[in-house]
């Protein structure tokens, strides 16, 4: 079985087929996915800005990290659940889409990032609340987090702009000439 056949089998599961062919459910899932970016992406952004010592300075960094943690975890779970629906329903189109693959790799980086900075930053309230501001490690962690998350949402958006050359023999440009970008997306 080729990767293409496996992907087709996944996207053609009755459940994913129903999601793909529903008139309303698919856009609702997509909208919810984007709303989660707003609700929980904002928490990630604020935490990063707090670790960089530029936002919410009246609240100790350790408090911001600890209090937002359960919400970020919940948000990530909802986000992944919605994303599995979106990706699964169109998996044959997505599995070899370079932006989709980049996005998935970056999501792995989120996990690695959390592991790497867990002890030195996120579970280290004493260092976070030092009078001189969060330590250098916290600023590195925050910067990397911002870069990774902005890249994830950018790749997520770009998935829609990659036309699979396999679907269009003899036509391989990223976006076909004369395409009106705003209308069809």
């Amino acid at each position, binding site marked *: 079985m080729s990767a293409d056949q496996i992907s087709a089998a996944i996207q053609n599961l009755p459940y994913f087929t129903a999601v793909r062919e529903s008139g309303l459910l698919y*856009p*609702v899932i*997509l*909208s919810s996915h*984007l*709303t989660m*970016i*707003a*609700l*929980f*992406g*904002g*928490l990630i*952004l*604020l935490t990063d*800005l707090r670790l960089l010592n530029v*936002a*919410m*300075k*009246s*609240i100790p960094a350790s*408090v911001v990290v600890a*209090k*937002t943690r359960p*919400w970020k975890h919940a948000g990530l779970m909802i986000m992944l659940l919605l994303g599995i629906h979106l990706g699964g329903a169109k998996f044959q189109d997505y599995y070899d889409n370079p932006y989709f693959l980049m996005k998935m790799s970056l999501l792995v980086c989120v996990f690695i990032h959390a592991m790497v900075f867990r002890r030195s930053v996120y579970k280290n309230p004493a260092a976070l609340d030092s009078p001189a501001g969060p330590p250098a490690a916290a600023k590195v962690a925050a910067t990397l987090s911002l870069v990774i998350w*902005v890249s994830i*949402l*950018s790749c997520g*958006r*770009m998935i829609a*702009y990659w036309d699979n050359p396999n679907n269009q023999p003899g036509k391989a*440009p*990223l*976006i076909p000439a004369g395409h*009106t*970008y*705003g*209308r*069809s*997306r």
Partner: protein
Amino acid sequence: MLIPYDITQNPLNTNEWSFPLMECIHIAMFAMSIGTIAVVDFSLLGLLFKQRSPAEVLRATSIWTLIGLVVVVSTGMIIFTTDPLSYYYNWSFRYKLMALLVAIVFNYTIHRKVAMSNSSGAARVMTGAFSLLLWSSVVFAGIFYAFTEELPYVGGPN
């Protein structure tokens, strides 16, 4: 045509990267603006930063909300120029604009007042919940734009 304007000459329609780039900035900045407002809403609902007052959370986030709003509205207007008529003749877009206007006014009047005062539980909860719903609906309308049939053109070019 009242204003001579050819969308095919718009740099966003002639360059393959500029439109998606604008969208990415738009998404990142609505995460910042709506995300920071949502933090205040969570605080009003008593779900986040329970030891702090919503007033303190609002003061700590308001500048980031404002920066986000300025950039997200600006990039939104730039995106709008790529095909103004199809946006105008789309009910989802019309709803989005009205809801956005209401949401911004609400954010700087009632929402702000309730967050800054030590209002009662009910007023706080209602304000936080309404704000979350209203802003979420703006995001929903932004996505539904692409899934919505255009309204019939009235006196339009077609």
